[in-house]
């Protein structure tokens, strides 16, 4: 029986994904106190979610965080891949350098920046103080905290974009570059006429991969700001975590989780559509 071979995997997925998703939908439709499910409440928790005056700002934070990190990580990843692909000496060392942030865990990436930016003892503070500015107290004001976690996330994730681009760059036939060189095309010419068109599908799939990563990012925010100060770094994912483990509001967290799930489904559909061309 062929199906016996996929039975264990299916069982694990039913247990860890399908069951909890149904359970989440179920709890979103009920009143909960602490982690106990009470009586049926219809769409109440969704009404509560969408009438919450904080929701627009959380969606805005999610957008700024995701698009901000994307706008940095995508060009950095592409540029790193192109530089690496054209490099003839020290290739291994440079690749290790580029990959270093991503080899670290998210918890490490978050906490080492936390220590580097520490207002009392960190070297960043020493530099800003010697330049006549105050200490680098970035995590205490809303805007600078959001900028900081966004930059840290971009810093950690750009190598992932680089690796995907690197894989695609290696499929560009060498003859194509050679023939362009014969015609006297410069580097810019080569980039616009060969590299970019070749990478079009890859760019789309990298955008999707990164957006999915950013939309579900919890760890880097959790270890640095926990969503604060005053909710300024609380993305939708972080909000799910805080509602669940800070406010013990199971049905509220479930409703937000369903919203997050819907966002993710849209991204997944785009990912699947482009999966056939590139290995996502």
């Amino acid at each position: 029986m062929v199906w016996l071979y996929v039975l264990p995997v299916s069982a694990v997925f039913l247990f860890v994904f399908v069951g909890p998703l149904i359970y989440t939908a179920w709890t979103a439709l009920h009143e909960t106190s602490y982690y106990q499910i009470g009586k049926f409440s219809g769409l109440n928790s969704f009404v509560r979610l969408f009438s919450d005056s904080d929701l627009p700002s959380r969606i805005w934070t999610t957008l700024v965080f995701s698009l901000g990190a994307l706008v940095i990580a995508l060009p950095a990843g592409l540029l790193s891949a192109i530089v690496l692909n054209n490099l003839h000496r020290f290739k291994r060392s440079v690749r290790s350098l580029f990959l270093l942030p991503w080899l670290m865990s998210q918890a490490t990436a978050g906490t080492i920046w936390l220590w580097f930016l520490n207002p009392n003892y960190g070297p960043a503070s020493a530099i800003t103080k010697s330049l006549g500015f105050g200490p680098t107290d970035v995590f205490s004001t809303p805007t600078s905290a959001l900028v900081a976690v966004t930059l840290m996330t971009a810093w950690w994730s750009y190598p992932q974009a680089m690796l995907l681009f690197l894989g695609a760059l290696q499929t560009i036939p060498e003859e194509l570059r050679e023939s362009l060189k014969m015609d006297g095309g410069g580097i810019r010419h080569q980039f616009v006429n060969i590299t970019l068109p070749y990478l079009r599908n890859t760019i789309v799939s990298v955008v999707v991969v990164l957006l999915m990563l950013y939309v579900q990012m919890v760890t880097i925010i959790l270890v640095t700001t926990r969503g604060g100060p005053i909710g300024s770094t609380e993305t939708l994912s972080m909000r799910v975590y805080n509602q669940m483990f800070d406010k013990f509001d199971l049905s509220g967290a479930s409703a937000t989780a369903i919203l997050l799930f819907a966002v993710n489904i849209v991204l997944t559909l785009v990912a699947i559509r482009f999966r056939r061309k590139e290995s996502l």
Partner: protein
Amino acid sequence: MSITTPRQRRLGSFIRAVPAWAYIILSAAVVLPPVAWIVSTSLKTGSGTLEFPPRWIPAPFSSEGYVGLLTSTNIRFFVNSLIYAGGSIVLALAICIPAAYVATRYRSRRMETLMTGILVLSMVPAIVVFIALYSMFVKTALINTYPMMIIVYTAIICGQTILFLRNFIENIPVEIEEAAAIDGCSRIQILWRIILPLIRPGIAAVAIFIFVFVWNDFLVGTVLATTEDMKTVQNGIVRYITTGFGSFWGLFAAFIVVAFIPVLSIFLAFQRWFVAGMTSGGVKG
């Protein structure tokens, strides 16, 4: 067409390399400072970490941070992470290899639907299912158990594992299996005796990927392990900051360095497989 001497050409390629190296130096300036700062902090004395303005070269050098790591709690974090990683590698391979095999060789519409379903599910944000898993586990005895942790880790990486293994199995010529079938091999024998030895490099890459994923994961340990004796290495790192008092920064930095060593050595030893395994799915971070 102009004629260039080798010397001019060397000069030309040197000039062309300037922007690339400018970019590399800029990257180093963005990537390295926090890393150097952590290594420096890990070699300082307790009071040395609280100096301001800070020194980059510790004076005096001290192994205080590293010696201080040897507590039973910290060792437990490392042992736990090893158990979770090892268990996940074994379980994921045991359930994903058969699935990847039949999904590659016995294609049907229903099989494709199942595989797409698994892939889509594995892209669901972890936090979405974790809140349900937590509230289900916390009411039963399932929370804080090794098997549950391993099953959750396995589920998260299964989608990518299957995808990656399928690429390997697709490259094996079907003729080998057909010949074996004619000789009277059953399907399970073909999988065990022919496919398995041929996809060994793929298995190695997947094992590396799973190890690094589990070792570096923070969220599963945070949510589904509620007691200290079940937490992971990454929880151990953050624990210094959330519960630290006094001058804990030296210990914290030393812990980060030690926790990074396994991943770094695997990366340096198996660079090619490492990269192949990590980019196969690319979604989970």
